[in-house]
């Protein structure tokens, strides 16, 4: 399936994704939905653990950020924003502690989808059962992207991971709030287009800095994309072409900026110091 085909689905985009995977087989459909439902429980569980813990990660660079934000006041008067950021960071701090998380689509980007989708749902009081189909759509968006490029920082930079997760989350939130298939796909395209070029530069090679805060930022980014799409704002560049552009930029990125820990913020005096310290030198 292409994003263009997905955008022309008559019903909800998630129905088209589900049909593409299981066809008319009712058992396969029920089984997939049941597992997807259990993944929402796993996401919730990782958020709960993440918000309650201030145990430092293995390097000590992160581990308390989600809890700190969670317990802080809300001077902006923007509870949705705060909640989305908290959830995303909670998941990724659990990830950095080698806790149990749901990769979505990767572990390094695992906070974006639950941050945006569960954050918006909790803000609006939407029950978890209604998140299953939007999550199916999120998975479908990842599937389309992964046909054009490997979803890994080592092959495409962070844009492949966080860009994909933001696109998935944007489509899911759009559908959750009643957006059409076309709107959901354009939300994904807007999210993706505005992550192009994002490099993978983990300090010391650890999935901590900038990964934890990046999930918070791009969960909000996904909600922004959904907001535009729900208002009818569309991506001028057709969604499938955006994916090709991202894959093409991924191929142009030098290895230093693709998950080797040798460029970007990893290659700063502080970043290099962390790397040496953790290598025991």
């Amino acid at each position, binding site marked *: 399936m292409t994003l263009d085909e997905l955008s022309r689905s008559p019903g909800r985009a998630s129905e088209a994704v589900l049909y593409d995977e299981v066809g008319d087989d009712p058992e396969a459909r029920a089984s997939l939905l049941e597992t997807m439902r259990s993944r929402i429980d796993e996401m919730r569980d990782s958020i709960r653990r993440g918000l309650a813990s201030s145990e430092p990660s293995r390097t000590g660079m992160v581990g308390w950020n989600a809890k700190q934000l969670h317990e802080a006041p809300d001077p902006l008067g923007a509870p949705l924003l705060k909640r989305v950021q908290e959830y995303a960071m909670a998941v990724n701090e659990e990830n950095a502690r080698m806790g149990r998380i749901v990769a979505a689509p990767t572990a390094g980007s695992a906070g974006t989808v639950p941050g945006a989708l569960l954050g918006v749902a909790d803000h609006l009081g939407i029950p978890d059962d209604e998140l299953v189909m939007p999550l199916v759509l999120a998975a479908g968006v990842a599937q389309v992207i992964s046909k054009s490029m490997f979803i890994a920082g080592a092959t495409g930079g962070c844009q492949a991971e966080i860009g994909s997760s933001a696109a998935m989350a944007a489509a899911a939130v759009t559908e959750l709030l009643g957006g059409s298939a076309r709107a959901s796909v354009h939300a994904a395209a807007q999210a993706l287009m505005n992550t192009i070029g994002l490099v993978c530069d983990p300090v010391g090679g650890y*999935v901590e800095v900038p990964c934890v805060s990046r999930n918070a930022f791009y969960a909000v980014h996904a909600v922004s994309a959904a907001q535009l799409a729900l208002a009818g704002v569309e991506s001028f560049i057709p969604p499938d072409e955006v994916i090709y552009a991202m894959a093409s930029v991924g191929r142009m990125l030098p290895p230093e900026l693709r998950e080797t820990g040798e460029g970007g913020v990893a290659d700063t005096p502080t970043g290099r110091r962390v790397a040496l310290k953790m290598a025991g030198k």
Partner: protein
Amino acid sequence: MGLLDQIGPVMVGPSSSHTAGACRLALLARHVLGTQPRAARLVLHGSFAKTAQGHGTDLALAGGLLGFLPDDPRIKDALAHAAAAGLELEYVTADLGDIHPNSARLELTGDGEESVSVLGSSLGAGFVRVTQVNGFDVHVSGAYHTLLALHTDRPGVIARVAGVVADDDGNIATAFSARQRRGGHAMMSVEIDKPLAGYAVEYLRSLPYIHWLRLLPEVMRGSEERVTDAADPPAEGTWAGSEVEP
């Protein structure tokens, strides 16, 4: 690649490619060996070499060799579990050539003389691909039950194996075979939708031109949907063929 691979796997962090994928590669290598490994030399390439420690790749590989699935909380302490299980680990880095940046060659030795060398890559989002076993090109994704067989290169072997799979109602998803030289040894990897029945495996093992045979589990399935548990060590006699090294 199914939808549940995109929202998933459920795994311990921190990286789907460097932790969950590494664990799955090691699980596959463990099943290629067919017994609990006693010693493992793990040759890390590219991004695996550069950021292994940061991503827990060392822990995930050790965990997979012990039979842990990617969501097993013991992965965090896998080095201690390996020491307790008497598994000696040696990590080295090397340039393995023009291959995927997240790659490793896992050289395993079991209790006896048997040893295997498994080259594989972690493709992102937890997907893996084993590309070589004992120097032979193979095609193993871990998404299916996989039959690996070392055989004599002669007419009809592939047809015979395919026939046995068909007689067992098995549907072949992918099939790949490559040989050393004409009339020499060849390795075939056949990915099948269902596990091969015991009698079919016994029959294949009895064929004079099949020298070594392994069944690898679907490591892409999570523990919550797994039918047969890859964490169980393979039963003696069920998995091991005649032990001929290429």
